[in-house]
């Protein structure tokens, strides 16, 4: 395989030198050597007339003796050579010199192929070849009568430089010796005789193509000297890789941690965690559905849609944070329909929920017409971790009902007469938001406690109901207001919460404009929940629900969605701009006119 190299070094025509190169690696050295021996024979010994016959023989012997796939390529190379050589005068000496030169070089540089060929170096005079008896002592041919030139027989070489070979083969009659060939080659300067022929596309352009390839064996060997010489970013990458490998323990630990975190959030594991250890199971969301339905009126498609959206919203929320969701069918039942208690079931349902979830602490009542706008807020982080800061005990801070707050009767104990009860978080048992008209029980919290048991027990009372049910429009809500006002034991355990923390109103409830900063939903503040209170009285519940659902979806897009929307928006903006400009122009024109 190295035979071709000296040719290259000697400044042979580039095409001829380079062409065989890609073929070379295919050939095992052993097969190359065998090829040499076989074909060399006829060349020298027979010395018979034609190049044709000679080559013919060699090709035949090749095919016969060496049955490896590489021989076929060699064969092909020789055939090609034959055709071209027919037209060329024999340049035998020059070629001879070349091959000898290559051998000597080989001996110094690698030494491998020369030895593997099993031939004695021909340059050393007077060395008898063990095989050579008939021929002159100079002949290194392994076979009697045959003198082998490696250049001739190495198919790749010959395949590459087509023209010189036939020349040599042609002119090399049996009287050519090594010395004479050497002498002649010394006279010859250049290789002008052989204008390389066009040898097809590859032959013409191979060097250009191979130079433009991103890798080069030759250059690597010459310049790199075993060291890798890459581009800077590659070097940097390698450096990073190496240092990572060196730090594989610590990096591995970090990666493991990262992987754990990712797995924690990808799998439902985080829900389990939030539920049990995060205390999610301490919270129960009670959602009233089917309000006023059943006996009294049938639900239409809009009502179904509202209910579906509302339930879906809460289901998602409770699942995310590991809370319990209790759906309560509030349809007017026979049980209540002809009794005094009609539509006072709120109290009963809370008590049932307390029985059903014996380990839960806080119960959050929600009406159907509510929508959680920010599902990313947990109840703990939003309210219960800083209960003292988000709630207020003294109703005088915001007192739409004008309840005279600390009870003045002097027979009461100091705790009851204090405006803030005992002022401790532990004593808060119910958290109520206040809207423009007083307490609002569309969204409120109750805590499991003995006190709450008593409140829920006394909340509905037949005497109170009998006397007040005509004037208590909001039923249990009015009843709670009444009890708060008239039964002092309740006050130290009630805390109020700013309405927009848990119960923002849309425009239309408590003011048409929706601009009250205490009451109405503010998009920029990302309010937690919207309660479309009173939408069934002359407003469009479904439209409001739809609007807020869309708004919530939009506000809680993930970054990828935001990016997509930003692109589409900017396109829309670009499209809209010309229109605007046109409009402006039109307006200007009109103004001018």
């Amino acid at each position, binding site marked *: 395989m190295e035979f071709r190299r000296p040719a290259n070094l000697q400044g042979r025509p580039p095409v001829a030198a380079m062409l065989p190169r890609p073929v070379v690696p295919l050939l095992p050295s052993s097969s190359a050597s065998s090829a040499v021996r076989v074909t060399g024979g006829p060349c020298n010994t027979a010395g018979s007339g034609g190049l044709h016959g000679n080559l013919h023989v060699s090709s035949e012997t090749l095919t016969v003796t060496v049955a490896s796939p590489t021989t076929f390529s060699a064969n092909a190379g020789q055939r090609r050579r034959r055709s071209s050589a027919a037209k060329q005068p024999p340049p035998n000496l020059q070629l001879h010199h070349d091959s000898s030169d290559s051998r000597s070089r080989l001996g110094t540089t690698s030494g491998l192929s020369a030895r593997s060929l099993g031939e004695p170096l021909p340059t050393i005079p007077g060395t008898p070849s063990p095989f050579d008896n008939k021929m002159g002592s100079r002949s290194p041919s392994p076979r009697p009568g045959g003198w082998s030139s490696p250049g001739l027989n190495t198919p790749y070489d010959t395949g590459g430089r087509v023209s010189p070979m036939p020349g040599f083969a042609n002119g090399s009659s049996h009287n050519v010796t090594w010395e004479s060939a050497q002498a002649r080659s010394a006279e010859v300067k250049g290789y002008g005789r052989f204008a390389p022929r066009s040898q097809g596309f590859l032959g013409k352009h191979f060097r250009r193509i191979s130079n433009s390839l991103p890798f080069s064996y030759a250059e690597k060997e010459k310049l790199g000297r075993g060291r890798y010489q890459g581009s800077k970013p590659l070097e940097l990458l390698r450096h990073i890789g190496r240092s990572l490998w060196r730090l594989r*323990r610590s990096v591995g630990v970090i990666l493991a941690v990262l992987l754990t975190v990712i797995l924690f959030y990808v799998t439902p594991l985080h829900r389990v965690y939030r539920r049990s250890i995060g205390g999610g199971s301490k919270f129960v969301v009670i959602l009233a559905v089917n309000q006023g339905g059943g006996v009294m009126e049938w639900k239409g498609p809009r009502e179904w849609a509202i209910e579906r959206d509302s339930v879906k919203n809460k289901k998602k929320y409770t699942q995310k944070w590991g809370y319990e969701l209790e759906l309560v069918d509030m349809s007017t039942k026979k049980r209540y329909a002809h009794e005094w208690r009609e539509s006072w079931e709120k109290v009963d349902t809370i008590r049932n929920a307390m029985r059903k979830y014996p380990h839960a602490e806080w119960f959050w009542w929600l009406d159907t017409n509510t929508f959680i706008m920010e599902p990313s807020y947990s109840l703990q982080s939003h309210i219960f971790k800083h209960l003292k800061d988000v709630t207020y005990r003294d109703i005088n801070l915001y007192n739409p009902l004008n309840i005279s707050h600390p009870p003045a*009767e*002097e*027979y*009461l*104990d*100091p705790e*009851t007469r204090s405006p803030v009860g*005992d002022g*401790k978080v532990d004593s808060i048992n119910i958290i109520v938001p206040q809207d423009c008209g007083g307490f609002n029980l569309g969204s409120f919290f109750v805590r499991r406690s*003995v*006190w709450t*048991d*008593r409140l829920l*027990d*006394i909340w509905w*009372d*037949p*005497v*109170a109901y009998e*006397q*007040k049910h005509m004037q208590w429009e909001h039923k249990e809500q009015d009843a709670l207001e*009444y*009890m708060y006002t*008239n*039964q*002092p*034991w*309740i006050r130290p355990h009630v805390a109020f919460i700013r309405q927009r923390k848990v119960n923002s109103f849309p425009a239309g409830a408590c003011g048409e404009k929706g601009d009250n900063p205490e009451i109405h939903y503010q998009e920029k503040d990302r309010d937690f929940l919207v309660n479309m209170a009173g939408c069934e009285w002359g407003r469009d519940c479904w439209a409001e629900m739809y609007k807020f659902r869309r708004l919530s979806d939009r506000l809680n897009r993930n970054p990828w969605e935001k990016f997509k929307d930003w692109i589409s928006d900017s396109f829309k903006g670009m499209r809209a701009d010309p229109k605007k400009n046109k409009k402006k122009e039109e307006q200007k024109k009109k103004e001018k006119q």
Partner: protein
Amino acid sequence: MHFAMPPRKTSRPPPYAARQSRGGIQIPYALRAFLRRDKLRTIIVAVLGFVAILWLFGFIGGRGGSSAAAIIGTGPPVVIVTVFDPRADAAWVEKIKANREDYAKRHGYLTFFRTDSQYPLRNSPASWAKVPAMRHAMTLHPSSTWFWYLDSSSLIMNPSIPITSHVLAPSRLEKLMIVNEPVVPPDSVIKTFANLKGDRIDLVLTQDKEGLQPNSFVVRNGEWAKYFLDAWFDPIYRSYNFQKAELHALEHIVQWHGTILAKLAMIPQDMLNSYVSGPAHPKNGQYKEGDLVATFPGCVKRGSCAEEMKNFLDILEKRAAGSD
């Protein structure tokens, strides 16, 4: 300098030095040395002890802080509450007061006397005043456990019996409790609970022939008492025109609200409220010698308490003189 060669290594090389743990997390040498020392144990113990002490102090302080005024049960065990009609005969009022004070002195109890005009009743019958009066007594004596309302129409006839052990001790209450009895005789569907624990009872009450009688009842101090008294005193009941005012209101809330019924112990009438005359409970309502209390139902309304009680007051005076 003096040695051309470095000194020989010892022929007995030291055993291999402990290899640092290459695998796990590398602990800085200083920290490792520190951890190895016994000092650390001392420090941990000291810190833990300090925290424990803090926690103990915090616990005690916290409990003290929660009811900064008083802890229930540290004061006199019983406070006897009586409300008088301000127009009543002063001499008779004094006699009644002396009757209570004598009893309270014997057993280390307290008395609490007020007139019904002191409380804002807003046109409701004066008999309602007992409810805010009880609340008032609890405000003024927050460390006492039991508050015994004894109407001015009653007399303590056997002052030697301490009410605490005679009636209010949990084991005694469990024995005395009348269970599964209609709250309002003869056939109310609401019956007293069957299995209540004596120490969970917050309200001790008697029943005469017609129903519950708030002439004489005992309430345990606490959150429940506030709830019960405030709910009872709700203006909606006062303005409702119950036929017998607070009595019917009481019967109403006991029957409708389980959280009240569950704290109520109904005991035989002669334990707390024996009738000298009137609609006594057929089984055990009539006054007999040795009963704690003798009641003259309705005498306040009739304005004839002084006359009706005369014989009994005389007996008490004689006994007092005899014992002295």
